[in-house]
């Protein structure tokens, strides 16, 4: 009964229980480093956690016993109703999309205004950013750790063009923020090309650090140039978006709901657009680069140009999102920290690389989790739980919540053939071919 493996499992469960006790226990300070530990472990409360740990262990054993039975049942069910037929049809996909869209439309009406704020600031904008980064990371397989820099560029460009008071440095004319969208998009894409052209020749990891450096540089420049960007004092007073056409006058205000629907519309359009891109020759070329860059090059795919294209497209979406941020509210260089870049990467991977729905789902789940934890745990401890969830998720579902089909196959293949294609996409551009 008590095999060594089982015993080991028990220890792991107990360790997890104690860890949970420590995480939920009282905080301490450096003067008494182990006081907090002692208080959370030497406390009647620990009984609950030990109990839960043992319970978990028993449950694991029970499940292990029941598993063959369970497998039979599911196999039988699967045999009766082919999953592929049930879920794979185009009608089913359209239906699913319609349901998701309807849910996205209704959802904000069911929650508090604070949650709506979060749905705009944390989920909506980050979903858009994640969709853009997904092109870079998911489609082209390039790791960009300074993605947020283009977001900053978009935001500052908006301040430059649409307000004469928000920053010390501004355009000689003021234009409606709506017209800034194309400008920001182009400038961000241009920045992407300028950064990408020399660096995309580098290997994947080097690209990561160069982009990280670029992100840092942009943030530091924004923070240091007081006479240009207003430095750390930030940008206040960019006008809200407004439509001023004959017959239609509408102004977005500080209420989050109109911004939410605007964002939803944009996200849907971007998703459709990227879906078409993915299924076009360009999307296939990216897939080829990801899977075998040398073969792609030999098949005539201009790999550098395609990567640059992905970089520019990703950057332009980020710049676009920057316009939305700037018109919605006050921002300062803090909004463009390295941590924000990491967060976007985390959303893309967590949601499922290469999957548009995954990017959005990642934003909803991760940022939603952050919002949920806001009330449930002490704010100072919030990121402990957040970190734990990310690790657990990566252990049990490294392909992400909603992996794209192509990406999932790549991961499966990488699992079967040792050392197969580099999942970062950036196979070393060696001169050693064959």
């Amino acid at each position: 009964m008590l095999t060594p493996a089982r015993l080991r499992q028990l220890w792991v469960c107990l360790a997890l229980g104690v860890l949970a006790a420590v995480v939920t226990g009282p905080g301490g300070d450096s003067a008494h480093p182990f006081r907090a530990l002692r208080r959370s472990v030497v406390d009647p409360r620990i009984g609950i956690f030990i109990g839960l740990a043992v319970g978990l262990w028993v449950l694991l054993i029970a499940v292990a016993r029941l598993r063959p039975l369970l497998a039979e049942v599911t196999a039988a069910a699967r045999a009766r109703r082919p999953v592929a037929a049930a879920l794979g049809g185009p009608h089913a996909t359209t239906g699913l999309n319609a349901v998701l869209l309807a849910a996205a439309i209704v959802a904000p009406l069911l929650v508090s205004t604070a949650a709506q704020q979060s749905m705009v600031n944390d989920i909506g904008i980050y979903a858009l950013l994640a969709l853009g980064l997904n092109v870079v990371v998911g489609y082209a397989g390039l790791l960009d750790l300074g993605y947020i820099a283009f977001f900053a560029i978009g935001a500052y460009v908006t301040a430059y063009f649409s307000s004469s008071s928000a920053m010390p440095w501004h355009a000689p004319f003021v234009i409606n923020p709506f017209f800034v969208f194309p400008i920001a998009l182009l400038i961000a894409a241009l920045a992407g090309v300028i950064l990408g052209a020399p660096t995309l020749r580098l290997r994947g990891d080097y690209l990561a650090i160069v982009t990280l450096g670029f992100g840092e540089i942009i943030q530091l420049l924004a923070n240091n140039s007081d006479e240009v960007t207003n430095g750390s004092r930030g940008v206040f007073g960019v006008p809200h978006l407004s439509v001023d056409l004959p017959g239609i006058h509408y102004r977005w205000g500080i209420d989050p709901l109109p911004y939410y629907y605007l964002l939803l519309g944009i996200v849907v359009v971007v998703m459709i657009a990227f879906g078409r891109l993915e299924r076009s020759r360009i999307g296939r070329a990216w897939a080829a680069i990801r899977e075998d860059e040398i073969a792609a090059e030999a098949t005539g795919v201009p790999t550098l140009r395609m990567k640059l294209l992905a970089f520019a497209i990703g950057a332009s979406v980020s710049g676009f999102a920057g316009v939305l941020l700037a018109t919605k509210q006050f921002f300062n260089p803090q909004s463009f920290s390295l941590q924000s870049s990491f967060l976007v990467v985390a959303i893309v991977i967590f949601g499922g690389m290469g999957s548009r729905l995954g990017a959005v789902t990642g934003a909803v789940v991760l940022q939603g989790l952050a919002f949920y934890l806001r009330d449930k745990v002490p704010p100072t401890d919030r990121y402990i739980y957040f970190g734990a969830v990310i690790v657990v998720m990566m252990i049990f579902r490294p392909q992400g919540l909603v992996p794209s089909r192509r990406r999932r196959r790549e991961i499966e293949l990488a699992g079967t053939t040792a050392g197969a294609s580099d999942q970062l996409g950036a196979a070393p551009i060696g001169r050693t071919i064959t």
Partner: protein
Amino acid sequence: MARRKLLGAVALAGVVALTAAACGSDDGSSSDGKKTITIGFQGVLSGDNQQLGINALYGVETAVAEANANANLPFKIRLVQSDDAGSPDQGPTAAQKLIDNSGILAVVGPMFSGATKASEPLYSQAGLLSVSPSATNPALTTLGFKTFYRVIAPDTVQGTADADYIAAVLKAKKVFSLDDKSDYGTGLSAALEKELKARGATVVHDGINPTKNYTSEATKIIAENPDVLFYSGYYAELALLSKALHDKGFKGVTVSGDGSLDAKYVEQAGAAAAEGTYLTCPCSDANSDPNAAAFVESYKKINGGARPGTYSGEAYDATNALIEVFKNLGDNLSRESVAEAFGKVNYQGVTKLVKFQPNGEVEGANDFIYRVKNGQIVVLGNTVDLIKS
């Protein structure tokens, strides 16, 4: 195997979520028939600067606990906290959370100027009073926020007074002004440098983002050989800077603003490195002010032995000023009446007299000078008096 592990993880996550939920949902409603007034706290409770938020939160909690222990008060206070991580991105969500809670009559916070700028439009729209214990950006009271007050003087007041003191009393000819490139630091150094230049002193300016490594910065400062080094930033960085300067044998005088007025400064820099540093504040420091001894005692008692830190006193005063208003209003309590009445409050706090100008600036803020002597921060007095004598 994998599935078993997955189940385990799910179960554990469930357990954590449940206990967390259980911990989070006890909202101590009073049982002795007194009515409960809810106030909010918005501040930086996560991220790199969370200690400043905790200082302020503890100050608020001290005031709340004292009020709830006071049998003479006809009400109990309940506190709802909302974390904005000090960032403008999370400001609106944090503010909205408090606004959504219709029971909340007033808010202490936001704390950082950036988060304040992002949050105040919402408070203004909702007509909810917010009293910041720490946002010192001068522009905040000029942006048209209707329900914004702060119990701390803007950087301009402090910077100017500090410059006067440095020029008149320390007789500095050359000042090295270093700021931490934060909203607070650049505001303070700008005001200081303007006044110093007006008084004819040579000013060398430099900015350095908060870091741990001030070694080469110390070399740079010593190379300039200034009479006074003024650091506009927070104590954690000043401590490291002082340490580095001390190691390299800096001969000049170090002065810093209210962000550095914290007993932790001496502890972290080491008594030797901190010795002789001047610290200034448009407030009196609770830890060294005899009048605030009672506050320090009750703060320690309520917060598990922690000593008041930067912004603890201001947050405590802001909360007590709110309680004063609640007391005066009696049964006529609403967001409007509280916001209305708060403008006329006149309350002697531990850091200063809480009384406001029409724009929400606290009146008659005095600038006080402190100095580290024998490892203790002692008050030297009011800038105006010190310059006169």
